[in-house]
């Protein structure tokens, strides 16, 4: 029942519409610049909201969230890597690239989770937004470290050192800049001025999300063609990993951070989600030996739809069950 109603929140329905449009081979075109524009708006908007909320709460409280975010950001990709290379036995370099995606987060999934909580009117803590911003980057570093270890073993000369340049790229990533920048502005901007820009970022937020998800549905659907290349065991990983991540997230959110149902569920979503915007180009550059057909299909074609349609209500139900 929860699950069904959640299927029917507009965000999910627009995602499904886009997925379907592509499936029936509609000639519907969604300009790439439009989805870039929408994602800029969404990142700034979620940052602003977060910053405004955070300015109200105890900054000390944020420390726990920061530590948890770093823990998850560095821990999850390592777990994913071992499952992939020892469990599923795919080559180390693809394992490292995929692991980086699952260690990082998907802002789209996070915002959809917030749309879910809003539509069933459940409150949530403001700290998870910081975690979203922090968790973007660490996994990228881990991914490269793992790839270099793998290359060393294989003894091929292509080690690309974790150069300052690469760390720079990971932390000056466009998404991170917009999220942190938005949070800072939300926290320090002069109130009257802020009140003048908020209608833009408030009134339109969920509507813009609906168009963004329409497009992401189309992109997810485009990946289906590569399911063959991915193979059953990896496809299974694309569903098992978010479930495992969510479990860890629930523990961290509830016992680690003492969040309520809303906040705990959001931490689960962060841990369960896989990046499909920031990490793919980073891994393409850092681990060219890895196949985008694998990591994009898993993160965008499997895990993202799974989280949006099944995961979010499921993690919410789990959070309720934990905190009853």
């Amino acid at each position, binding site marked *: 029942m929860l699950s069904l109603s959640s299927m029917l929140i507009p965000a999910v329905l627009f995602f499904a519409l886009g997925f379907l449009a592509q499936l029936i081979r509609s000639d519907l075109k969604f300009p*790439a610049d439009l*989805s*870039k524009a929408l*994602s800029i708006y969404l990142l700034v908007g979620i940052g602003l909201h977060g910053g405004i909320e955070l300015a109200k709460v105890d900054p000390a409280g944020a420390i726990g969230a920061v530590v948890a975010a770093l823990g998850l950001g560095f821990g999850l990709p390592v777990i994913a890597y071992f499952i992939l290379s020892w469990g599923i036995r795919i080559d180390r370099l693809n394992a490292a690239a995929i692991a980086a995606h699952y260690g990082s987060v998907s802002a789209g999934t996070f915002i959809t989770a917030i749309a879910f909580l809003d539509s069933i009117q459940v409150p949530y803590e403001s700290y998870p937004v910081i975690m979203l911003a922090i968790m973007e980057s660490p996994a990228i570093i881990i991914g490269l470290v793992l790839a270099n270890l793998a290359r060393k073993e294989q003894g091929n000369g*292509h080690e690309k050192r974790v150069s300052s340049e690469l760390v720079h790229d990971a932390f000056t990533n466009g998404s991170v800049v917009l999220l942190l920048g938005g949070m800072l502005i939300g926290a320090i901007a002069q109130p009257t001025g802020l009140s003048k820009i908020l209608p833009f970022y408030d009134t339109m937020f969920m509507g813009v999300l609906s168009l963004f998800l329409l497009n992401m549905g189309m*992109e997810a659907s485009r990946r289906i063609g*590569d399911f063959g290349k991915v193979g059953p065991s990896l496809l299974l990983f694309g569903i098992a990993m978010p479930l495992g991540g969510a479990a860890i997230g629930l523990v961290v959110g509830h016992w680690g951070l003492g969040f309520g149902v809303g906040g705990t569920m959001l931490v689960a979503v962060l841990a369960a989600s896989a990046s*499909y*915007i920031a990490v*793919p*180009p980073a891994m*393409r*550059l850092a681990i*060219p030996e890895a*196949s*985008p*057909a694998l990591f*994009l299909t898993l993160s965008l074609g499997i895990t993202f739809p799974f989280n949006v349609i099944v995961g979010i209500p499921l993690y919410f139900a789990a959070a309720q069950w934990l905190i009853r």
Partner: protein
Amino acid sequence: MKPVKRIEIVIEEIELENVIDELDRIGVVGYTIVPRAGGRGERGVRYENLQGLGNVQLTIACSETQSIKVIEAIRPILKRYGGVCLVSDAMWVIHDS
């Protein structure tokens, strides 16, 4: 008009910066970029998208001697990341500005 080599390179958007660094290193000043390209090759289909995994088309007109340097600089990148590099002959209309 002076004879030049016309080098046409198709690479991923994200590699462009590296390629331009190479051109700077070997002292090639002029190039033209056509962004938002797509295509298909050994690595499957590519198109302009949110992740910036589309292609760019780079055209360089230069002397034969420079063209050899460019090719040597580009080859490892192509080997590592894929893409194509075509070289042909052309006449450059001189406008001695």
